[in-house]
Every structure is written in structure tokens, then in C-alpha cells.
């Protein structure tokens, strides 16, 4: 009977199937990691083309600047989604690794005249080194206490930055960091920076996609599902957690380096708790266990904050209310929830038909 319902042609299918096809191109697919091996699909091509062409079509300096910020936030969210979305551990200290990356680049390029390309890699290494140091003792904690411990690390980082002015410029920060440059090509306009940031982001997405399909990726999915179960099948739970933490921190360090060389400034106000909260929000709204989602969340929240800044002193209360509402109505991510609703909506008519048949 079910087959009959699906076989017959219904004119109303034409109404929404086109819209669904369009939406299915845009909405990130939840939990694809176990379905098939990665291959470049139409959806990825669509994303790629959008990223390449959008700044050319929408040629506006403010838009380019916003998308540069969104890309940096996207890298941060991508790093955290490995830790929060895939390995299931919460961290409220991600902004500190972002800050470590920024300050490494700032100090290396302004004091020691090291090229920004080298400083970029050095930032990633420094951030992951600090993550290793702090992660070893902290990661045995779970839940709220892990969140609190990472938050504490973030606050200690801020105090250290403020109180050592000879190294980090104290409260004022470091200015006049040179723009990012490779082999004499300087990324000095917003458009060039846009392609730089999103190019790095695409590279990191490909890296993460491969990582999730590797042995280590499977291992941290297992850790997220059940720590006891994972350790029972011989996975080194603490080692895996530490590895993911270090990798997320390395991403944040790279993002910090890009931020420093794009905005040419680094000061402690940027790396506060608010940024950590923002990154976690991006991951939650993008959907846990999903790579494109956090990037979409980063773009969305960056745009939201920019849109709200028009209301000046009212912007923060409105922002708080919007965050709470989004958490209440989309607790498992906007994309995931919308997709579930769409599937429900479409299957509703089929179920209605079936119900009527049963009643008859």
C-alpha cells in the first residue's frame, strides 16, 4: 500500500520538489560522515562557486570586510567543531588560542621582521604547543567542569597579556602589523584578503573532511558516543581527546595569525570570554557533527552582529534574546532542524493519504 502511494504521480509534488532541491543544495547535510567516502559532489561545487563569485557579484567593501571576519570566525568554529561537535567536549577557552596565534604573529612580524607566511605557521605551532601543555591536565574533566577550566585558562591568558606590556603591549596592544604577503604579493585590499581567508578555510575544510574519515576521526566519533565503550575497544580516550584539542587550537592559532595580519592590530579586548561564547554558539547553531554547519553559523552570526550594531546600545540585549530564542527553537542546529521540518512537511501529505486509507 505504501508503494502505491509513492508510485502514483501527484501534481502537487511539482510545487515543492523544486524548492526542496534548491534548499538541499544550500542546507548542510547532517551526519554524512558514515554514509559514503568523500567525493566532490554537486553541492560542494555549488558552495565553491558561491564563495568564488560572491565578492565579484556583490562588489562592496563593507561586504568584503564582513566576509573576511566571517571567514576567520569560520576557521575558529571549524576548529571547535572537531572538539565540540565530533568529540563531544565543550571548551570556553578557544579565544585564548586565537589570541596566542594573533600575538605570535604580531610579535614575530613587528619585532623580528619575520615574513608573515612563516609567522602564520609559527602561530599554529605555538597555539598547539600551549594547547598540549594545558590540555594534558585539563582534559580528564568532563561537562561543566571542563567548560569552567577552559574558561579559567582564557581568563588567565587575558590577565597575562594585560600585565606584560613589554611583550604584548599591555592593554593597548600591538599596532601596524604588516599585511599578509607571499613572495611579494601583498594582501592589502579587502577583496584579496577575502580570497586569502576563504582559501585557507577551504583547505582546512578538506583537511578536516579527510581527518574525520581517518582512523583518528573514527576514534573521536567513538569517544563522543561513549567514552567507556571507546576505551573498551582499545581506543586511547585521553590521547584522542588531547589530539583533537590540540588540532582545534592549531586551527584557532592559524585564524589568529590571519586576523592579526588582516586587521593589523592585536589587543586583549578582542580575545575575551564573549568571543569564546560566540564560537561555541556558531558550532551549536551550525549543528553538531557537521563541517559546513559551523561555517554557515559563523557567517550568520557575524552578519547578525553587524546588523544589530545599527541599534547601538540596544544591540546587546537584543543579541542576548536572539541567542536564547535560537537555542530554544533550534537546539540541534538551524540546518538540521529545518531539514527535519521539511522532510516532515513533505511526508505529511503521504501520511495523511495513508491514514485515510486505513480508516476506510
Amino acid at each position, binding site marked *: 500500500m505504501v508503494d502505491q502511494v509513492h508510485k502514483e504521480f501527484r501534481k502537487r509534488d511539482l510545487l515543492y520538489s523544486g524548492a526542496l532541491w534548491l534548499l538541499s543544495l544550500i542546507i548542510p547535510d547532517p551526519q554524512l560522515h558514515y554514509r559514503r567516502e568523500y567525493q566532490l559532489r554537486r553541492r560542494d561545487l555549488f558552495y565553491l562557486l558561491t564563495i568564488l563569485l560572491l565578492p565579484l557579484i556583490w562588489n562592496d567593501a563593507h561586504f568584503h570586510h564582513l566576509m573576511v571576519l566571517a571567514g576567520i570566525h569560520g576557521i575558529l568554529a571549524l576548529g571547535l567543531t572537531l572538539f*565540540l561537535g565530533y568529540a563531544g567536549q565543550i571548551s570556553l577557552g578557544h579565544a585564548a588560542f586565537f589570541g596566542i596565534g594573533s600575538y605570535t604573529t604580531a610579535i614575530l612580524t613587528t619585532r623580528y621582521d619575520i615574513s608573515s607566511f612563516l609567522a602564520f605557521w609559527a602561530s599554529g605551532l605555538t597555539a598547539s604547543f600551549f594547547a598540549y601543555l594545558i590540555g594534558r591536565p585539563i582534559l580528564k*574533566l568532563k561537562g561543566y567542569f571542563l567548560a569552567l577550566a577552559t574558561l579559567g585558562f582564557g581568563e588567565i591568558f587575558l590577565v597575562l597579556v594585560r600585565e606584560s606590556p613589554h611583550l604584548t603591549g599591555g592593554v593597548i596592544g600591538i599596532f601596524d602589523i604588516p599585511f599578509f604577503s607571499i613572495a611579494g604579493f601583498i594582501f592589502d585590499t579587502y577583496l584579496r584578503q577575502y580570497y586569502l581567508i576563504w582559501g585557507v578555510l577551504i583547505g582546512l575544510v578538506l583537511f578536516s573532511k579527510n581527518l574525520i574519515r581517518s582512523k583518528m576521526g573514527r576514534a573521536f566519533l567513538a569517544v563522543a558516543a561513549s567514552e567507556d565503550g571507546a576505551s573498551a575497544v582499545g581506543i586511547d580516550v585521553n590521547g584522542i581527546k588531547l589530539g583533537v584539542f590540540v588540532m582545534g587550537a592549531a586551527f584557532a592559532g592559524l585564524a589568529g595569525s590571519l586576523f592579526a595580519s588582516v586587521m593589523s592590530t592585536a589587543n586583549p579586548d578582542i580575545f575575551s570570554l564573549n568571543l569564546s561564547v560566540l564560537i561555541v554558539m556558531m558550532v551549536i547553531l551550525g549543528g553538531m557533527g557537521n563541517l559546513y554547519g559551523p561555517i554557515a553559523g559563523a557567517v550568520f552570526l557575524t552578519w547578525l552582529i553587524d546588523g544589530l550594531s545599527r541599534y547601538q546600545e540596544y544591540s*546587546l540585549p537584543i543579541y542576548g534574546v536572539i541567542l*536564547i530564542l535560537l537555542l530554544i527553537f533550534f537546539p540541534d542546529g538551524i540546518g538540521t532542524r529545518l531539514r527535519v521540518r521539511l522532510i516532515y512537511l513533505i511526508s505529511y501529505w503521504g501520511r495523511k493519504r495513508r491514514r485515510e486509507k486505513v480508516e476506510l
Partner: protein
Amino acid sequence: MDTWNIIPQLLISGITFGAIYALVGLGFVTIARASQIINFAQGEFVMLGGMVTFFLLKTIPLPYPLAALSAILIVVLIGFLLHLLVIYPLRKATLPILLMATLGASLFLSSSSALLFGTLPKALPPFSGSGPFEIGKVSVSPQSLWVLVATLLVLLSLYLLSHRTLLGKAMEASSTDALGADLSGISRHLMIFLAFGVSAGIGSIAGIFITPIFYVSYHSGTLIGLKGFIAAVLGGWGKHGGAILGGFVLGVTESLSVAFIPSGYKDAIAFIILLLILYLRPKGILGSPFIDSRRW
């Protein structure tokens, strides 16, 4: 030589700060004993207690005791609303989401209080006699004694609530075994609702008692809240006595540290203590009833 002379004075101020942290920590413990939720907006209750009292005292000239009482009532109402509008709709949510929701609520409360009461820091007049009195070489301000008395009274009433009344026992039951509490007819959500009210009340009392000692401004709630939480973890998560002990230890350590290291690092001390205690002894000094359960 000079350092050793100021140590008694630092001890006194450390004890005052300790009492404040203990009060804030008690608010955290109250909610944790009813639901194992950590409410990051606890610090905002403290800030709002001071702010609303100041507003009632200066803008609508009410007498001091009346202003303080109505401020406590208003903040308790805000605590109830926080539960109804944020925590209750998220009763089935996972931990990161609850955490972010209370952080969002904290952001909303602090920024809207900046909007309503202005961004300038405010101080209330002290309760009695502004001049400090001298004991030996140490000067003590009367307000510090008031804070100590308030801590003692709140601790006493919380003890009576949780050990001598049916309501307190029901609250504790709903935290230790949710299913068991449901089966014996305890409404879990009502208990969490009431716990939020009690905790907001404690927070606002703390706010009213400390605002005469130091200035309170719209963003001071977060740090006080975090330090109160650290006090509660340090003493033993989920124990009233633990929050008090942890508060005094934290306050005195922080205060004494000023004598030995630059004062700019003072804020880092609390977080270093947090990392150390979480690493070495996560259940705190006095031990914790919750820390061994699977949830943590």
C-alpha cells in the same frame, strides 16, 4: 618589613571578600542541590541586587530598608522569570546548550541593566556609621561586619531550609535521583523553579550588602559570579559549608597575594586556584556529594 605590616589589614579585607564569595557561592550551591544545573547568570543577580536598590533609593526616594526589601523581591522575580523563560523550555536540552543559554541570559541581564540604570559605577551608602573603627593597628569598616553577619544568617537559613523542612528535602531529592523524586510525587520542575528564586534572593542579598564596600557597575557581575563558583568548587561542590570555607580560602589567598605579586595579577589567582583544585582534587576540600556521580 613594610610587607609584613600590611598583612593583618590584608587578612581583614580578605575575610570580607571571602564572605562575599561565600554568599555568591551559596547561590550556585542552592541551584546545584536542586537540579545540578550551573547558572552562569548568578553573578548578574548580585549586580542587579545592588543596582535595583540604588535605583529605588535615589530615583524613587524610598527608605533604605524598604528599597532593599523590594530590590530582593524584584530580583527573586527575575530569577523565577529566568527559570520560566530559559531553563524550563530547555529542560530536555544537552549540557552545552544549557550552558550557552545561561550565558546568553547573563549577557542580556547585564546589558539591559546598562541600558536601564546607566553605565556609571554606583555605590550605596553604608548601613551604619561610615567611619572605620580601629582594632590595634587594623582598621575595620562596619560594613565588613554586616557582610559577615549576612553570610552567617544566609548559611543558617539555608541549613534550616534543606535539613529541617520538607521543601528542602524535596529539592535535594529532585537533584540526587530525578526518577525517584518523580515516583514519590515531587514536581521536579517546581523544585528547580523555587531553587532559582532562592538563589536569586541570596544573590541580591549579597549585592545589597557589598555595594557599600565597592562600586558595582553593569559588567561587574560576571567576575563576581565566576569567583563565587570557584569558591563553591574549592570548598566542595554541592555543600553549603564547602561554599563558605572555599569563599574564605579564596578571599584570603587573593588578598594576601597582593603583598607578594603585582596587583594586576590578582584576578588570575582565582583561576589558577580553580585549575589546581580541578586537577588535584576535583571534589574540593570538604568533598562533594555530586562529584562521584556519572554526570560529572
